[in-house]
């Protein structure tokens, strides 16, 4: 196991450097510059900006300087748009917002999805099964940027129950709609995965053994079937995190939350190079570490899986 972790870490670090390099390359290859957005600048000011940010130096010096900062002390530099704010500060400030919404949304999705999927599998071909699977398909098919505004329309503008947008600290009622919007698609995927996994496990020999030795149906399902049936859900958690991050981009936009996703979109549109690279690197690191944790969890949950 330890060897597995070490080997994965050894692959992870170069991967992150490759991602940073690709992102940097894309930004440098693209025509224009972060200051070439709105109006034409006088040549003197343009030169001052180029000097200040070292844009006149050859590309390998710029690249080297950036990489050195990142490798030496994880320093991504300062934002070009939010002047005087370091990338690390912005990430530290916006991460809690995204994490609160994202983690709560995924937890909600797990609870609802696993319950619905298990019921569907246990009562296969009943109206419960068809009902929850149709709902799940709906959840997969309705884009979150349609679902979010419709929820706002109903619960904020129609019924006046919940605030329509803005960050209200944690916890607050402002979080309810973003969490619902974000979790819908994961609920749907998890319900489908749970159903498929449970159906397969429920027919397997070890469940028959458990039943044969006289365990109650409750024990069979909770202690034996769920453990095997949830394996697809565990392996889905890796990709889900990737989707979760893109999901938060939209949800933070709709609900005007000052999260990582919102900053990322603004940085991309503004060509705020250090901020883009900082957020991309942060997201990649989170993602790769989470994927590794998922793989380790997998080995603990399923005795048939061994890493070597």
């Amino acid at each position, binding site marked *: 196991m330890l060897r597995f972790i070490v080997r994965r870490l050894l692959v992870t670090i170069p991967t992150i450097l490759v991602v940073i390099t690709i992102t940097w390359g*894309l930004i440098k290859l693209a025509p224009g510059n972060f200051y070439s957005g709105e109006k034409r600048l006088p040549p003197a000011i343009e030169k001052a900006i180029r000097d200040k940010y070292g844009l006149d130096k050859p590309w390998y010096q710029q690249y080297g300087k950036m990489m050195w900062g990142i490798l030496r002390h994880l320093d991504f530099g300062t934002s070009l748009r939010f002047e005087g704010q370091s990338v690390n500060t912005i990430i530290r400030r916006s991460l809690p917002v995204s994490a609160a919404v994202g983690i709560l949304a995924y937890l909600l999705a797990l609870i609802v999805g696993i319950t619905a999927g298990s019921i569907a599998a246990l009562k296969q071909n009943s109206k419960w099964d068809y009902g929850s699977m149709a709902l799940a398909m709906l959840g997969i098919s309705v*884009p979150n940027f349609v679902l979010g*505004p419709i929820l706002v329309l109903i619960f904020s503008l129609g019924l006046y129950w919940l605030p329509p947008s803005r960050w209200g600290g944690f916890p607050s009622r402002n979080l309810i709609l973003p969490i619902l919007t974000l979790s819908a698609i994961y609920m749907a995927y998890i319900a489908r995965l749970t159903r498929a996994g449970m159906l397969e496990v429920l027919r397997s020999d070890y469940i028959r053994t458990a039943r044969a030795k006289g365990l109650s149906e409750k024990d069979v399902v909770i202690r034996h079937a769920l453990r095997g049936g949830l394996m697809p859900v565990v392996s889905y958690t890796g990709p889900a995190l990737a989707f979760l991050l893109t999901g938060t981009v939209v949800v933070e936009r709709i609900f005007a939350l000052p999260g990582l996703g919102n900053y990322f979109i603004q940085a991309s549109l503004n060509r705020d190079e250090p901020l883009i690279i900082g957020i991309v690197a942060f997201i990649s690191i989170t993602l790769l570490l989470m994927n590794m944790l998922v793989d380790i969890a997998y080995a603990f949950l399923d005795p048939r899986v061994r890493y070597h």
Partner: protein
Amino acid sequence: MATNKHTDETDLIHVAPEMAVAEADVRPAEAGEFVQGTSLWRDAWRRLLKNKLAVFGLIVVGIVTLASIVGPTLIKRTFGFTPDYIPTDYPTLIRSFPPFTGPNGEFSWTHPMGTDNAGRDQLARVLQGGQISLFVGIIATLVSLLIGISYGAIAGYFGGRLDNLMMRVVDVLYSLPYVIVVIVLLSMFRSQTPRGQLTLLFIALGSVSWLTMARIVRGQVLSLKNQEFVLAARATGVSGARIIFRHLVPNTLGPVIVYATLTIPQIMLTEAFLSFLGIGVQAPLASWGSLAADGVQNIAIFPWQLIFPGVTMALTLFSLNFLGDGLRDALDPQMRTV
């Protein structure tokens, strides 16, 4: 898993060996009757038609596609306006009217989905948006098919260290936040022309969604390459490339079609997401995503501007997903979850 293209000249029983078991309803031949073998495709089609949800999906996708193609022309013939026609003779300042309402608040058949901010007909806009959305979905899926099939087939056929290396690359790419990279790519290289942006969108979406396809094709090729027909081809001196693309790839079509059907809605969703963020399809072109993005701005006053493109899109994706699930059950009994 499909019938072999090059042996399928007659319509007798030509089923890839591992599929023979799945042929459940072969009737015993009666005396003097010519036995009509069921091909895999006909069999799959029959199974698909038995699946009510898949048939529903097929019909809805058919209607939406047809309406998107002929709808705008039909509307022009009937009512005399194009999707981008902006009326100049409105009596009121507000030009966005609810469904089935005329400029004076009276009932009218002219705009069944209402009008947008500029007074353009929403139905025509949604249908035209459908053209772009479906087009992006299909073309980007084709791009991903092209890359994924070639990559997977080469890795699977040559095997060994090449396979190992190629699949490691796929593993690494899998764990990357590709949508994030696509956002950077599209916002950095924003094209000045809508067509340029559309091309960029195809390339960006297609080049990040081929990974699963490569894995599927590789798995298929691995299980096929040691069968007799490949050996026979090799013995008669057929080149590697020809074996891959003429003999192996056609036999992987079943799972490929299933996965492609499920990729189209995913890509359409990603396109809509990018258009919603303002870096996807650019005006004057419109897709369901960009129409919905426009609609969100006015959600409080003119909710129909969001609801119609949004619901049309959701319905289409819903149907495509059901169709894909149905195709999987029909074409690939082994992948069936029930």
